[in-house]
């Protein structure tokens, strides 16, 4: 899979190095003054600024309805797949504004996993994993087989399905289906993987498996995860973004935010005083 996009990190502009915790990490994606909304509604994102560090897990937390999904869906422009949805501002990736790129090319570099597992119902396990390749014209069996195995291993699903790769993807358990969806997203070799509450439909054991694999795969790529579960954010992420009513309230190292939040509203949310 080749993309025309240069995925090298863009040089760190002086003004964004303010956060000294992050000085050493390169920036994979930089969101500036992002405003977004839906047809006929009030703006949902009211000028969000944040940076996503390369090869880290960044968690986006905040009360339901604050715009977490809207934000993460802007990052690979799935947001605009909703009729009438608008997005304005800058999402710099590899030095270019993602909002001005071809969304199809962008999405190959920025993959996504959704809240509910959504394997393709007509496809087998292997076909599901390979779908991003086959649908884009890769038909070499050896390449596909290799990509399927590699992706399933990265998604910690290989051992469970290696003997039934031709069985329907929808026949797996919910947790397995979600890992299948992660494998499918990884097969395209994205530089960034977005996950929107990927465990909200799963039991604690399935959730634990996904958390483990996220910690594994961040060695190779950048992970952004929306979660309503603060323990999950604490377990998997290095950085946390706290959102409230369409605004980014606080952003920083997870361990710092959970121990000594800067903003009063963050503190209130984390200590469970609202949300």
């Amino acid at each position: 899979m080749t993309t025309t996009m240069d995925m090298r990190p863009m040089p760190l502009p002086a003004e964004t190095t303010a956060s000294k915790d992050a000085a050493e990490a390169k920036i994979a994606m930089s969101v500036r003054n992002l405003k977004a909304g839906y047809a006929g509604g009030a703006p949902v994102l009211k000028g969000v600024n944040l940076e996503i560090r390369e090869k880290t897990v960044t968690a986006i937390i905040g009360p339901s309805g604050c715009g977490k999904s809207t934000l993460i869906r802007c990052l690979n422009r799935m947001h605009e797949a909703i009729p009438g949805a608008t997005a304005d501002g800058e999402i710099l990736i590899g030095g270019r504004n993602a909002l001005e790129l071809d969304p199809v090319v962008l999405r190959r570099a920025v993959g996504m996993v959704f809240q509910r597992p959504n394997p393709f119902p007509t496809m087998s396990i292997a076909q599901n994993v390979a779908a991003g390749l086959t649908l884009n014209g890769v038909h070499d069996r050896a390449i596909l087989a290799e990509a399927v195995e590699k992706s399933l291993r990265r998604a910690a699903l290989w051992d469970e399905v290696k003997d039934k790769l031709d069985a329907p993807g929808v026949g797996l358990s919910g947790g397995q289906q979600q890992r299948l969806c992660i494998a499918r997203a990884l097969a395209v070799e994205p530089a960034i993987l977005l996950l929107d509450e990927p465990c909200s439909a799963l039991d604690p054991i399935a959730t634990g498996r996904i958390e483990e694999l996220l910690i594994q795969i961040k060695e190779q790529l950048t992970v952004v995860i929306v979660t309503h579960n603060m323990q999950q954010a604490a377990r998997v992420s290095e950085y946390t973004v706290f959102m409230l009513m369409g605004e980014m309230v606080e952003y920083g190292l997870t361990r710092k935010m959970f121990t000594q939040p800067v903003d009063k509203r963050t503190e209130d949310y984390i200590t469970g005083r609202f949300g």
Partner: protein
Amino acid sequence: MNEALYARRKRLNALMFALTAVCAAVASGTLLAILGYIAWKGASSLSWDFLLHLPKPVGEKGGGIANSIVGSAKVVGLAGVMGVPVGVLAGVYLAEYGRGKFAFAVRYAADVMNGVPSIVVGLFAYALIVHPMKKFSALSGAVALAFIMIPIVLRNTEEFLRLVPGTIREAALALGVPRWKVTLMVILPTAGRGILTGALLALARVAGETAPLIFTAFGNRFADNGWLNPIATLPHTIYTYAISPYEDWHNQAWAAALILMAFVLLVNVTARVWLRPSSGTSH
């Protein structure tokens, strides 16, 4: 509270139940009666000779309907080849891109087309093909049947495409697959079973159409002779034989009707068994 009132309500309830049950019995009984009657009348003239031979010259006894069977297969087959792709793709358009005025017009036109008497569609095919070519033909009959199929297939396709959950579309889009490929290679196959079933039912439906073939396919007592000549079809042969003065032809009409009926039933049952959701499909 009031015993009498309660008893009356109970009686009324029983009465209404009986009434609906009787009507339901009439509705399903009609099908059984038709099937039974045709089987009874048709079976006596049915034989391998009847299926495999051409009609005898007028006045001679015996002969078969081989040309009508082949003709129906050809005309209905060609109608499917023309009508199913057009109907499916138009349905894709409506389901995937159909929001504007044009889509509204297409949807409305399809619904009106569904109600147009089939003989009018036959007249249209006559004007469109038979008249300019100065010849009745298998082709013109197939075009008439295709026109009848298109709105049925179109609306059915649209409905089944709309049943595909939006999350499937999102999953494919998020993989960096262009929209048109998502539509044709992910959404369409996901709805494929329902769409195919609809196409089969539409085929079965037009296989029994007579009126649109009267002045298009026209009928023929001889062996099939290409796409551009008049051709015999089962419903049209039944019609011709039934209104003829010959006792032998009447019997053959019953037997031909039995064949047609069996074919339509077979396709219907196949389609409906197929439609039954299998593992995982989300209909």
